[in-house]
């Protein structure tokens, strides 16, 4: 017996995508928005979970997590672990997530010296002394890339990665391919 043929193919379940910026500048998220009208095509294929675009505060079970930025404080580590435990595939997006980037420029300086310079010594910014509110996450002694703390499945370099590279990564992953970047899309700056 033949099964009855459906007139329209069943709708594929949309993939859930979460994004966040840790010690980053949101430049990678801006680059994601630079895919322009392709974002409409993307929204046919995915729905966003936790992301600056949705303002959802905690990550639920997701197919894909995009992490911008490295780890400069305890909250960054907490959020990263939340993403890793909820996302089937985790991607380090941008220079800061991959090697610490600009925030890691403080790594050869003593953290106390940096805080004192910014909040006590430097007269333009020193109002009120070093912040010490219990709600503020404590800074890490050094800034770290995310692969030093959790397993990362794919890396997308760039500062920021070009919109076309982000599109290539997303379309490769949505099609079930291993993402690859050719000349011009793979760059570290």
């Amino acid at each position: 017996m033949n099964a009855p043929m459906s007139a329209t193919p069943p709708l594929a379940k949309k993939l859930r995508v979460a994004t966040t910026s840790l010690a980053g500048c949101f430049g990678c998220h801006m680059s994601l928005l630079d895919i322009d009208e392709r974002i409409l095509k993307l929204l046919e294929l995915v729905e966003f979970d936790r992301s600056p675009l949705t303002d959802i505060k905690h990550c639920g079970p997701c197919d894909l997590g995009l992490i911008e930025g490295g780890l400069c404080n305890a909250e960054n580590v907490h959020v990263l672990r939340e993403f890793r435990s909820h996302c089937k595939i985790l991607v380090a997006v941008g220079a800061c997530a991959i090697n610490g980037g600009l925030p890691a420029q403080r790594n050869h300086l003593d953290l106390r010296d940096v805080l004192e310079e910014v909040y006590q010594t430097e007269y333009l910014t020193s109002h009120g002394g070093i912040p010490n509110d219990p709600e503020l996450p404590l800074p890490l002694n050094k800034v770290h890339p995310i692969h030093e703390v959790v397993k990362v499945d794919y890396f997308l370099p760039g500062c920021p990665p070009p919109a076309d590279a982000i599109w290539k990564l997303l379309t490769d992953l949505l099609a079930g391919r291993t993402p690859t970047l050719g000349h011009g899309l793979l760059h570290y700056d």
Partner: protein
Amino acid sequence: MNIFQLDGEDIPFRAGQTVMQAATRHGVYIPHLCWHPDFAAHGSCKLCTVKVNGRFGSACTLEAQPGMNVENRTTELDDKRRTMLQMFFVEGNHFCPSCEKSGNCALQATAYELKMMSPHFDMFYPDRPVDASHPDVLLDFNRCIMCSLCVTASREVDGKHVFAMGGRGILGRRIHINSESGKLADTDFALTDRAASICPVGVILEKRRGFAVPIGERKYDKSPISAQVKEKAP
């Protein structure tokens, strides 16, 4: 004419040429960092490691012989080269977005060629202060890969011995400046020196010339490093 095989291709060579010299002249790229066509091979970076008749050897120091069967761009060798590049990247402070050499850097272009997507290892973040003492030249040691091309160029072309390798261990070994103070300003180094333009990465930089070439028009924006070797072949 003598011939050897490189990834199945016939490479002609003259007696005395190395595998690297013959391949480059023929337009075939063998990944390398410390080798430069103008200078004697140093053989230190090991990125040009190839397999000759099944055994590993450095293409830059290995004299070509008739009938050699050389493997170059195999998955096995490129995987090892990528790992070596990742070690270079974590041992120094290679922050491409803020580097004037970005787009013109041999280390970066080689990493693109070998599809290096991440540093893989834990970062060292070594403390390497810059030397901004010279009026015309900045030395940013954060990016040094110890290829020693500046040492050779200053000694052999400029006759000045401005640079020297010194120290031990991954974090101890570094380029030293031959002056009483250890500062470049106290040497007779000049912007016109061959050593001033030899650095494959972003250590030796001309002052007051930041980011002069826009992104998209820099050396390796146009074509990958392997394609440029092919284009330059006679």
